[in-house]
């Protein structure tokens, strides 16, 4: 098997709070292969975005730290690489698209200025070439009338169009990995469908790997090849998309699916996972889902389960569910 494009190994991120260092993500390990599409799904506080940011070390400096773990990319550990190297990697090899394009776009620069900036920084293009390339990119992200739109300011664009511009900037240097963090969450459902379709097409056209972060299991199901389910700072399940949706194995994943209202089938009372999502600094012995799990056993409430393979590439962090393969 070829070496993965990016490899996260035991990545742990802590943030400084009034009460000391709080662990936001704890021992995250998974690989992303070339051209792979990995979906990361979780609710708030799951650490999915924090994990994504660690690939580019975009957390605020001074108030965050990595007590252990590595992000291996191109022979380097991105968690310890010099800032100079990271600047080269960001935008060129690994690019990112966020939920809210308005806060990532500069309101006083035109679309052309913003796309050119990346091109000139990483590819050293002159102004005219960069402009031509910017128009090509807007075409590529299916913005109608690109030659005119290129001179618009962001506020003149709809939410969907702004997200297309963000994607154009992200793919400007043909990155090998695109990280999309809730790229469609702020959009209406028909626009969401358009953006997801666009990302699918671009992924094939450009041959890039994608890490898609979403709270929406539907978005993940329709986009990812492989799914990482996170809960309260840990990976609880990691499986090929078909296996995950056909037979979820972690009680949290099961609960999440059962609590989603459906558009087809009978209308029944929803299953509601009891309790609430824990705060990051909440001390919970054992499995962090234990307090809400209807299958919890004593071992679950005292010992931290490991992420173990149950069959093939399906891994799950649950003591009872992994007992046959060496779980607690």
């Amino acid at each position, binding site marked *: 098997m070829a070496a993965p494009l990016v490899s996260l190994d035991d990545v742990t991120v802590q943030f400084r709070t009034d009460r000391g260092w709080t662990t936001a993500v704890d021992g995250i390990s998974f690989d992303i292969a070339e051209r792979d599409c990995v979906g990361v799904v979780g609710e708030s506080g799951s650490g999915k975005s924090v994990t994504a940011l660690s690939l580019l070390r975009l957390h605020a400096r001074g108030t965050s730290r990595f007590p252990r773990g590595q992000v291996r990319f191109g022979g380097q550990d991105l968690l310890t690489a010099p800032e100079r190297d990271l600047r080269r990697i960001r935008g060129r090899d690994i690019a990112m698209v966020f939920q809210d394009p308005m806060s990532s776009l500069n309101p006083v620069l035109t679309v052309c200025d913003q796309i050119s900036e990346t091109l000139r920084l990483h590819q050293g293009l002159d102004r005219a070439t960069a402009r031509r390339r910017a128009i090509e990119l807007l075409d590529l992200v299916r913005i109608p009338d690109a030659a005119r739109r290129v001179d618009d300011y962001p506020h003149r664009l709809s939410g969907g169009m702004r997200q297309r511009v963000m994607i154009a900037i992200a793919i400007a240097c043909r990155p090998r990995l695109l990280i999309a963090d809730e790229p469609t969450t702020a959009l209406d459902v028909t626009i969401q469908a358009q953006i997801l379709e666009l990302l699918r097409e671009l992924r094939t056209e450009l041959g890039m790997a994608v890490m898609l972060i979403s709270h929406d299991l539907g978005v993940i199901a329709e986009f990812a090849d492989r799914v990482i389910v996170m809960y309260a700072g840990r990976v609880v399940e990691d499986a090929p998309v078909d296996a995950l949706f056909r037979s979820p194995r972690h009680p949290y994943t099961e609960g999440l699916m059962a609590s989603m209202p459906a558009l087809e089938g009978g209308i029944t009372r929803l299953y509601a996972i009891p309790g609430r999502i824990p705060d990051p600094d909440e001390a919970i012995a*054992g499995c962090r889902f234990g*307090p809400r799990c209807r299958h919890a056993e*004593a071992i679950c409430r*005292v010992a931290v389960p490991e992420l173990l393979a149950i069959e093939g590439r399906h891994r799950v962090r649950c003591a009872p569910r992994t007992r046959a393969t*060496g779980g607690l």
Partner: protein
Amino acid sequence: MASTELLFTPATRMAALIRRKQLSPVDYVDAVLAAIERLQPALNCFVTVMAEEARAAAIEAEQAVIAGRPLGPLHGVPVSIKDLIPTRGVRTTFGSVAFADNVPDRDDVLVTRLKAAGAIVIGKSTTPEFGIKGQTSAPLFGITRNPWDLERTPGGSSGGAAAAVAAGLGPLGLGSDGAGSTRIPAACCGLVGLKGTTGAVPYQETRDAFGNVIAAGPLTRTIADAVLMQSMMAGADPLDPWTAHAPPLGHISPRLLSQDLAGLRIGYLGRCAGKAVAADVAANTRASLDVLAGLGAEVEEVTAEIDWMAEDQRVLYLCSIANNLASVVERFGERTDPVLRAYVAAGKRYDIAAYIRAINARTRLFRAVQALFESYDVLVSPTLTRTALAADFDGAAGIVEIDGEAVGPVQPNWTGFVYPFNLTGHPALSVPSGWGRDGLPTGVQIVGPRHGDGNVLRLGALLEQARPWADRRPPVAVS
């Protein structure tokens, strides 16, 4: 990982490291064997060290990891087995010269199950003769000492297992508890000790299966290790009738799932049949109760009058010893423990009528304790009335001193809180409650309704989370 860290890391974590190929079971077992070699002369906690067998098993364990074979939850983790429990091909003495050369041709089912889970047996831990007393010494091997203070006993009768685990000589010790023999050493050595509901794990080594009061169980530094080890041993066994319909171990009630104990009723047993509880032990018990109260539990002192039937307890205990072990004493005389001889002599004085009365009293005791669970979800008490006694304390004639006052014989004045729950079969757990004025550990006992083992362990885990104890190491340990 430095070798001392390795010795004091919980089994759950070590097993995880081994499965992830970050730790070689061979290195691990070697480190433990090296530590045993250094500390055995001071602690005298092993009757037999199985260095060769353990190394061979570790090599095999390592190969299994490399080959990617399915690995049990305890894969590569060292465990010691109390010498009352038979091990195939390895001398099993019951602590007695009478069995100095006894080599069983079978493993007890618990040994079989631990090995099947991947554990590596590193030795047989010391026990007083036939496990009859709360201190661990016998003519066969001498005196086992407490790593917190070599002048003190590690308790008994699973004293060897407790001394070993406390000193970092393997994270798991298999003990057995017929009158507090797992909980007493746990309290003396600052460990977790569990006596599960009768039948939760099988006990093959009793002659009276129906009247059985003995439960084997884990001695560990953490609750997680205890739960893990106990779950590996649980399950029905044809030789133990109590195991037939025992529910799966470790299930906990939804009320105890969250961190919120609102609505949980705790009965505090401040006194049993004993006369006094040392001030430091009482204070530490209170502190533990405060933790649970802080999480929302209602704590109420048990005021119901309970007849703890101290005299009948003595009858049951001594009659069993006298009638089962008189022949050993007759044959080996001076080479047996004087305490055993005294117990046999005392037990012979009871007639059958006294014995039947005592058996009936046991039923009354069960019903009285069972009735407490109408009012309370769990009972909490000190495990022992004071810290560890002297290593050479006379278990038969010695008088226990509490806070400078002589109060009476060990049973019930030291161990009065533990034995009743062997007779009633309720699950009882001892976890550290703190340290006494003399710097020795103290224990708190949590007792639950029958088959509430998971609930009792869960409360132990909440105490552990609030007042962790496993980081503090005894003075006698490899450093």
